[in-house]
């Protein structure tokens, strides 16, 4: 569609990686070429999404019904590849933003902004800055956290922990929020806020993971919008389809030709299915497998391109970060590997002892009625969503793969399922995919197109979006479980 040409202002839409920047410094005349795709996603060719869209009246219907902005935004467009899921997603999002709930509307959007800011997701921030003002929020608040009431500011701590290290949340944190005299949160309000925070952290993962482009026609700027930036460098996008280049596929699976890669995966799935019956791993082995998986995720380094440079290298250029940072405190606080915390045991979260179905649901629903049902439906939907296809193959039972993805995300947050053999993760998820998963769930802002492209070459984009949905929901559930467990402990 209307590409912006290579005007300097358009160039500002993308971050520059250090390499490009060096080149640019040397020679000011070089113009950065514009990325080719201007669809909803920087990763997915426009036609893939649009094709699916035109057919789908249902999506439009849903958008009309549940969208708060009243337009078909890029997230929705990309998600509409999975219309079934889209409905439960939009419905729950609409419910937490617009329907019956303890928090006033502008507060809800402000909380969304705070959550998105943890991951420097300017896309979501801009979106909610608009909505915040539209719902009658006080513009002054948008100047940063110092300008908001103490009560909202208090949420900052839990926002930070929830986003990066949810396992650190304790009942003391809850107590601090609930019992602070005049600035206290009532439990229903707190639950509402926690649901919003978790939702927007997870959504930020999706936005980065799917390379959602900034909305094309930002409404008249209100001065609070951040410069819409994609966190991908143009050079990264230009390397389109650079499969061979994928430096990350360096392990055992990497060398396998891309077509046989898919078959190999299916082969492994089949084998695992059969193996189950005869070979049973001993207990100790199961435990070590979990530990290995958590530990291994340590070495799955997510740093790619410029992000692996020490901060000081590009600090002066990171305008966005400073812009975003007004909504957060302690911007340096980030994900830290669950297994690393040297001092051995912060105990793993045993999934069976606090499940969403048994415990989380009851608590959420008790304090913030009906959201439980909507979230329940959404989790179920994403977990069970399947078209029984894998790339070109049809009639495949993908349960294992889905479960592996879901549990791997939980594993990175220290949630362990007794009845899951973490060896499966190793078998099913190749290294480049693990890198991608870890980046998307833990440091979404560092996702690059190269990572997105480097795994599952044969798979359709819609399948990769499906992966993103799984990651997003798994992450949201993990955050909710930790937060709700803390609230439960506070209550008992």
């Amino acid at each position, binding site marked *: 569609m209307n590409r912006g040409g290579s005007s300097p202002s358009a160039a500002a839409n993308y971050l520059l990686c250090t390499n490009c920047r060096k080149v640019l410094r040397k020679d000011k005349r070089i113009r950065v070429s514009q990325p080719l795709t201007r669809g909803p996603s920087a990763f997915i060719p426009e036609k893939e999404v649009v094709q699916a869209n035109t057919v789908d009246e249902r999506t439009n219907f849903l958008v009309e019904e549940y969208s708060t902005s009243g337009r078909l935004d890029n997230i929705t467009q990309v998600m509409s590849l999975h219309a079934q899921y889209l409905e439960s997603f939009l419905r729950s999002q609409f419910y937490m933003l617009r329907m019956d709930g303890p928090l006033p509307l502008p507060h809800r959007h402000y909380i969304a902004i705070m959550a998105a800011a943890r991951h420097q997701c300017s896309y979501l921030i801009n979106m909610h800055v608009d909505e915040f003002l539209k719902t009658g929020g006080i513009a002054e608040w948008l100047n940063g956290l110092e300008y908001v009431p103490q009560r909202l500011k208090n949420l900052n701590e839990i926002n930070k922990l929830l986003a990066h290290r949810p396992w650190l949340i304790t009942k003391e944190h809850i107590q601090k929020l609930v019992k602070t005299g005049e600035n206290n949160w009532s439990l229903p309000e707190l639950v509402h806020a926690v649901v919003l925070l978790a939702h927007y952290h997870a959504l930020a993962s999706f936005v980065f993971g799917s390379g959602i482009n900034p909305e094309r026609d930002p409404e008249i700027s209100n001065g609070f919008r951040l410069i819409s930036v994609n966190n991908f460098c143009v050079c990264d996008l230009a390397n389109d389809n650079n499969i061979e280049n994928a430096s990350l596929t360096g392990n055992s699976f990497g060398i396998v030709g891309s077509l046989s890669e898919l078959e190999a995966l299916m082969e492994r799935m089949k084998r695992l299915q059969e193996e189950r019956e005869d070979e049973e791993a001993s207990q100790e082995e199961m435990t070590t497998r979990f530990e290995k998986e958590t530990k291994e995720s340590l070495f799955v380094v997510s740093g790619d391109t410029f992000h692996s440079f020490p901060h000081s290298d590009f600090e002066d250029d990171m305008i966005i970060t400073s812009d975003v940072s007004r909504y957060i405190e302690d911007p340096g606080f980030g994900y830290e590997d669950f297994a690393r915390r040297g001092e051995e045991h912060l105990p793993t979260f045993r999934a069976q*002892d606090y499940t969403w179905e048994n415990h989380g649901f009851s608590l959420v629903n008790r304090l913030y*009625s009906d959201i439980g049902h909507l979230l329940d439906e959404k989790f179920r939907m994403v977990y069970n969503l399947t078209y029984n296809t894998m790339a070109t193959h049809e009639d495949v039972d993908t349960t294992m793969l889905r479960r592996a993805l879901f549990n791997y995300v939980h594993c990175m947050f220290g949630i362990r399922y007794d009845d899951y053999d973490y060896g499966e993760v190793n078998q099913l998820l190749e290294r480049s995919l693990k890198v991608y998963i870890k980046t998307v769930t833990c440091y979404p802002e560092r996702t690059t197109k190269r990572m997105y492209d480097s795994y599952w070459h044969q798979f359709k984009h819609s399948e990769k979006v499906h992966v993103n949905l799984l990651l997003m929901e798994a992450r949201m559930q993990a955050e909710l479980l930790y937060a709700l467990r803390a609230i439960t402990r506070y209550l008992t």
Partner: protein
Amino acid sequence: MEKMSRVTTALGGSALTGHTMHCHLDAPANAISVCRDAAQVVVAGRSIFKIYAIEEEQFVEKLNLRVGRKPSLNLSCADVVWHQMDENLLATAATNGVVVTWNLGRPSRNKQDQLFTEHKRTVNKVCFHPSEAHVLLSGSQDGFMKCFDLRKKDSVSTFSGQSESVRDVQFSIRDYFTFASTFENGNVQLWDIRRPDRCERMFTAHNGPVFCCDWHPDDRGWLATGGRDKMVKVWDMTTHRAKEMHCVQTIASVARVKWRPECRHHLATCSMMVDHNIYVWDVRRPFVPAAMFEEHRDVTTGIAWRHPHDPSFLLSGSKDSTLCQHLFRDASQPVERANPEGLCYGLFGDLAFAAKESLVATDSGRKPYAGDRRHPIFFKRKLDPAEPFTGLASSALSVFEMEPGSGSMSWFVDTAERYALAGRPLAELCDHNAKVARELGRNQVAQTWTMLRMIYCSPGVVPTTNLNHSVGKGSSCGLPLMNSFNLKDMSQGLGSETRLDRSKGDTRSDTVLLDSSATLITNEDNEETEGSDVPADYLLGDVEGEEEELYLLDPEHAHTEEPEYVLPQEAFPLRHEIVDTPPGPEHLQDKAESPHVSGSEADAASLAPVDASFSLISVSHALYDSRLPPDFFSALVCDMLRFYAEQGDVQMAVSVLIVLGERVRKDIDEQTQEHWYTSYIDLLQRFCLWNVSNQVVKLSTSRAISCLNQASTTLHVNCSHCKRPMSSRGWVCDRCHRCASMCAVCHHVVKGLFVWCQGCSHGGHLQHIMKWLEGSSHCPAGCGHLCEYS
């Protein structure tokens, strides 16, 4: 008799004895099960698996089945069951999907017998066949149920629920081949153990997961199920379609349900979250639990009746790492604590009152409003001989009719509407409210407001008129007297007096604002004159005692004693902030002014020690000068509030509470405040004073109250064409795909405020309609109606 003998035979001649007792476990329990000899209990959890002997006074650890150095996940138990035929046989379900059987007869330390690793996911439940020694059934998260024959290494048959995870499986006690299973999606299925291909019957029992079920030990067709939807349902399975016989609504999701032995209608439940108590319900009486055990500090995870024929011993294990034996006779019985009285107003103010007969009989003599206005009609309820709660069931119902006019509560409504509760300095609020009260002829209340003003707003601004009020009190006609100068002249003409009142009130507040020092001087004069006229006894020094007396003395005031009094308010748009920081700034200001004031009135300093009986005038003086801290009075004020509340005038209590805010809040305990607020709000709503009640909710500082405004704030609308509810959005009907509310001016859908003419029912955006009607008086839709907007 027959039952008794059965118990004794079953117990081998000796009845069970024991106490309510508990013992500490090392780790949280997930499930418990009792041996058939009723003398041992097994506790299983993630990191505990032990057998305890139940002795007279205590639990004694008998055996630790968790052996081996490395704790294996096979030992992380989700469920445990003890065979009811063979006391050496146990089975556990592990969180990693393994089913383990244990043989206590094994000579080695490790009693583990067999290991079935057929389930892929966590096994939620295991169950032995009640009469077959070797049959074990398991239900798992993977959606399958498996039947094992313990003599074989593998499962005999696998049942696929075809739906989601299995949460519970239970063999029927009477039907040899039948078992029931419950599912995460709310279904209950009935299976024949011989037919693994499909279930016999399936029905949806709950909304959301069904966590548990239990067959009735005697009634062959009855199955109780408990679910996440907080319900316990009892189904009759003998009929063609499962029929819901009873339904008990609990307060939290139901984790376990167990029928109570020998009591046909009793069952015990415990919950999965939030609520830690164990309840025993009579299913015919689903609203109040028959008994309640409150020993646990964390959620109860397992319950079991100690003996299948003894209804009095219940064992329970909990996440708080304790094992308890509860004795039924030690249970707390909520029924006893429940209010056996019911009270209800009829449409025309009639009052119906139901209570225990005995209570009514003794009480009738001393009801304050008994006398002439009471025309009780008595009904007696026929007793159902089967009804177990006979003691409580015999009740009397009295109906009190209202004499026309006598019950008029217009003063209540007026006060509620006119009182100002916030948004102005405290002094003004008090003045305003005093004025309102006075105009409504409620002198005592007015007086109280004035006093409050004096106590909490330091000097300067106390207007004379208020002081004079105390004098008015004394007058038998109960009329408000505004000013002592008028006292004598005016005591005859009611009407004129009231009018005068008003005008005085107004001018007074004006002056106050203009120049406080000037008024002060005049005040002083007035006071003095007044003081000489007034018998000191009438001045209210001691708020509580004095007022009470007044009430008693003055029959004319009797009507004010009726149970509902209420609030004053004016519909000010109030902000939350105001609640939290009551007019602090003004307070300071007042203080700042006080020095020069006190200088001019040095004489009063000596009055500082406040005594209950000093005259009103001196109070004001004392305040001016020595500036007693307002805290000094707070105890008194609190007593006063309680007094009003007890008199039934919650309106006053709550209004003062709100107006004074922080000043007194901390001296009254939260619960009382909450109680006042709820009563008042209830009253307001009864009188349809929605705005006022909302304001009160908003201004309340009690968390429980302000939550009220945050719940169910949705308004559902119906489509104007098809009359169906528009559930998803308020402006487009899903059914007829039409927009329900179009703006007559701009022809767009109205999503926010919709204003319409009640004459022609056309309308639209508030702004648009307002604008339109400025320019035209006809309806914008062109229907020709002359719309009015006001």
